[in-house]
């Protein structure tokens, strides 16, 4: 397929996943804001902005983080390239460009999300509950993903879409976990406290994973269990290792279909095998933040290799 | 006369480019007064593309270079036997009718000043004499001086400046002739600099004007003459851009530096 088409498909998936992350971030923030802020770490919202990588843009436009502004910034604001609105619009535009590589159903899901977004934008903000916005986003992300999964030919286009989903999700899970680091950093003594657990649970909730977590681990919520769940557990759909496996699977399919291996397969295999050998203790030894920072960089590098191997147009 | 041409164009890029595409009019025209004894064009790392004779009768040859590449050398070498036809183009096969060359382009369009320069020139009685007169007036109005004009200078601008090079002379000649209703075109080629001590570019350009009785006739206001056996005709077009011996585009952000050397020598 055209390199540019593959690139557009890849980015449809990334933008959908990113829109969902923006909504999840909003949810994490809103829940964290519900707990008393007397403990001396009132800037939960700062941590969210840092995790989304858009803190500078926000500060320039709004100054101090206030929940109302954050909602605008993370959901509606077109100046924020990672806002839900920006991502849905970009995903739909990418879809429009490669309309013919999508099924009617997949296009319909993308286009409906966009049309509904425009309706939402016309409503007064006061009429929009935060929970409604986040649920709306997740519902549409699920619809897009579902139609792609249920209706698309299992050809190379499908592989590029899935590569986009997994790559972006790996990055986003790592970023969401990193929020935790920012929140807790100033007060190491909170580790293991009730408050800490509340925040970890919130994180799980934001990933729609807290029930799954309890089924898998039971008992008390600990940092170790959660890190294991979100990084190393192959049953967790958002865990880093699940994402790495997904990327590997789809890169292998491409290599088979094209009868040609590239540096991308190699890079994905490296990422996966490193994760597979890891124990939770190793992660905490390195430092969760340090580990996540490194992982985010490695995923970025894998994205660049995928781009060079398939998407940039000078493939030989 | 036997003329030996050695024409080297070197493109250097400050960072490697992803690829280069060129279109050449670098083959001597097939016409009376010039016969090719040997002729080669090479492009470093180049792949020869399609070639064809276009509607103006010129041989066009495409080339591509696959990057990354930081410099490209286009080398033209050959020997041509020439004879003086007093500027008249004969035995040259082309499909484009002369009427097409009445079309103006921004580079050649006559402004008020250029139109005034044509005042009193009578095409109807003696078109040949009229064209000679135009050529004479232009060489007087625009003094030969390198460095004051550039590749995108128009005929009108050069006339206002009162100075220019062969490209400006040719553009002004074309604009004036078309203004008087005579089809005219731009010709690029080589010139063997005579030993009169006047410095001339060996890569040269002049104009051709279509005269009802004679057909296409060359006029070179820069040298106040019609092309003779010191000239090698390559290709023609509506203006300099249209007749360029080399057109090319490099893909990539690199800045291009161009270095051209042309030598035309008489061989015994």
């Amino acid at each position: 397929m055209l390199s540019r088409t593959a690139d557009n498909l890849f980015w449809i998936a990334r933008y959908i996943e990113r829109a969902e992350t923006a909504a999840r971030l909003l949810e994490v923030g809103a829940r964290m804001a519900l707990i008393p802020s007397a403990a001396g770490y009132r800037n939960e919202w700062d941590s969210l902005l840092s995790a989304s990588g858009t803190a500078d843009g926000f500060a320039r436009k709004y100054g101090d983080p206030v929940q109302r502004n954050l909602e605008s910034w993370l959901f509606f604001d077109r100046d924020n390239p990672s806002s839900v609105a920006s991502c849905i619009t970009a995903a739909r535009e990418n879809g429009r460009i490669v309309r013919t590589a999508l099924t009617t159903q997949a296009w319909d899901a993308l286009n409906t999300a966009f049309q509904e977004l425009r309706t939402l934008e016309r409503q007064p903000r006061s009429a929009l509950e935060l929970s409604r916005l986040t649920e709306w986003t997740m519902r549409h992300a699920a619809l897009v993903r579902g139609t792609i999964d249920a209706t698309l030919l299992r050809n190379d286009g499908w592989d590029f879409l899935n590569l986009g989903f997994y790559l972006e999700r790996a990055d986003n899970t790592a970023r969401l976990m990193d929020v935790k680091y920012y929140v807790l950093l100033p007060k190491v003594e909170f580790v293991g406290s009730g408050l800490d657990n509340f925040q970890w649970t919130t994180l799980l909730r934001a990933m729609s994973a807290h029930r799954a977590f309890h089924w898998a681990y039971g008992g008390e919520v600990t940092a170790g269990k959660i890190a294991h769940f979100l990084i190393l557990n192959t049953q967790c759909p958002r865990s880093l290792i699940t994402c790495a496996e997904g990327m590997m699977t789809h890169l292998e399919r491409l290599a088979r279909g094209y009868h040609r291996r590239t540096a991308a397969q190699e890079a994905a295999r490296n990422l996966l095998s490193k994760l597979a050998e890891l124990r939770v203790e190793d992660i905490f030894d390195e430092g969760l933040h340090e580990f996540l920072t490194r992982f985010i960089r490695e995923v970025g590098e894998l994205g660049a290799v995928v781009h060079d191997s398939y998407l940039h147009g000078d493939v030989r | 006369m036997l003329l030996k041409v050695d024409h080297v164009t070197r493109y250097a890029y400050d960072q490697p480019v992803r690829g280069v595409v060129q279109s050449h009019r670098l083959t001597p025209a097939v016409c009376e007064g010039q016969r090719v004894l040997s002729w080669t064009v090479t492009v470093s790392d180049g792949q020869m593309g399609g070639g064809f004779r276009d509607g103006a009768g010129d041989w066009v040859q495409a080339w591509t270079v696959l990057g990354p590449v930081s410099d490209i050398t286009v080398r033209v070498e050959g020997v041509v036997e020439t004879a003086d036809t007093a500027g008249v183009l004969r035995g040259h096969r082309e499909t484009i009718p002369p009427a097409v060359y009445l079309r103006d382009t921004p580079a050649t369009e006559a402004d008020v000043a250029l139109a005034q320069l044509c005042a009193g020139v009578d095409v109807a009685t003696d078109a040949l004499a009229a064209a000679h007169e135009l050529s004479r007036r232009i060489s007087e109005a625009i003094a030969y001086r390198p460095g004051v004009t550039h590749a995108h200078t128009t005929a009108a601008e050069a006339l206002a400046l009162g100075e220019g090079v062969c490209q400006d002379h040719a553009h002004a000649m074309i604009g004036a002739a078309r203004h008087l209703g005579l089809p005219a075109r731009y010709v690029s080629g080589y010139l063997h600099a005579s030993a009169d001590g006047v410095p001339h570019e060996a890569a040269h350009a002049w104009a051709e004007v279509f005269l009802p009785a004679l057909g296409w006739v060359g006029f070179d206001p820069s040298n106040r003459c019609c092309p003779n056996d010191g000239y090698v005709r390559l290709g023609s077009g509506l203006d300099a851009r249209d007749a360029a011996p080399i057109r090319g585009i490099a893909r990539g952000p690199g800045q291009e530096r161009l270095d051209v050397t042309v030598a035309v020598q008489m061989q015994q």
Partner: protein
Amino acid sequence: MTACFNEMFEGGSVRPPYARLQDWMAAMPAELRQMKQAEAESLFRRIGITFAVYGEGGDPDRLIPFDMFPRVFSAGEWARLERGIKQRARALNAFLVDVYGRGEILRAGRIPSRLVYQNEAYEQAVAGFVPPRGVYSHIVGIDLVRTGPEDFFVLEDNCRTPSGVSYMLENREIMMRMFPDLFRENRIEPVDSYPEKLRRTLASVAPAKCDREPTVVILTPGHFNSAYYEHSFLADLMGVELVEGQDLFVEGEFVFMRTTEGPKRVDVIYRRIDDAFIDPLCFRPDSMLGVPGLMDVYRSGGVSICSAPGAGVADDKAVYTFVPEMIRFYLGEEPILQNVPTWQCGKAEDLKYVLSHLPELVVKEVHGSGGYGMLVGPKSTVDQVETFRAKILANPSNYIAQPTLALSTTPTFVAEGVAPRHVDLRPYCLVGERIELVPGGLTRVALTEGSLVVNSSQGGGVKDTWVLAE
């Protein structure tokens, strides 16, 4: 404008092609009609067929209004139209091959050579080149209007890249979905073979150097273009890649597209971008839309370009006047379809007539399109006429004038029910190994009462166009 031809009702009775539509119309209460109309609109919006107009602002995803009342031709009416359209398409192509070759028609003095050789659309870069099968214009869109039962006039020819065929196909699709009964009761010729015929036409003009099943692509200026939907729609239905200039490159003697598996050779390019932009080496050096070196590959037989560069010289409004001459000259036949009488403002005596009859005439720019820059005399105020008079005087040869034709009307759904509205017709004729015409076309309708401007950019709508089987 009193006595214009109504295609459905004539002298109090219903014309036969529309016979079965009368009951359908009568049986449609206002609520049902509104419901169906809303359904159609939502179908159009969901498939994404929208029309963006540059510089108009407003909704970039605006829909062209769709009128559910079909426009109908009998088999006999269509048979005559078909002969006339194919005749015209043959003559236009013969003209193009001629003027880029020996120019016999000009030498014979049948068309002034100035009109051709000094025309902006004449590309000297392709002079002397004969494209595969001698076809320059592979898709000829001919705009027709009707003034009576037997009277069809050609308004203009579109030899480059006529747009709108996606509406022909989608309008039919939507009508079949919403009113299946209508299609059971009437025997309507299908139009859905168009994409396959287009693909065959394009493949049939593969270049000399192509020695295998040709790879066809559609070249689009990109997703910001107002016709992008149509480009992707056709690519999809033909099963060919939709490429932008940046997806193609020239290497050696051929053109390739950039794919995830490496370069893939391209043999036929159905381009939907203008000549000036297709190759910055040959035409506009600032073009970012084209493919550097494409013209050299084309001229040396490595790729085919449809429509062929230079085809525009045949659909110029000044050349239009001479199409009947072309038909006589090249085919030795009499034109089946008439031209609208046209005055060339560049000619002194024509200009004089035009200036003294402006309030009765339609005046158009020679190179204009889309209903912009035109004057509809009878529908204009004195001020508008005078403003236009000044424009004509400033550059007379840029304008042509035609009488205001009493365009036919067909019944159209309007707020108050059903009312006659003026229509035109654009059928799409394919020219390759064979000349083909699918039975149908795009009917455009001027939705404003009394309006004669059917352009979608000026408030026009579209209708499904039926050709009844024998």
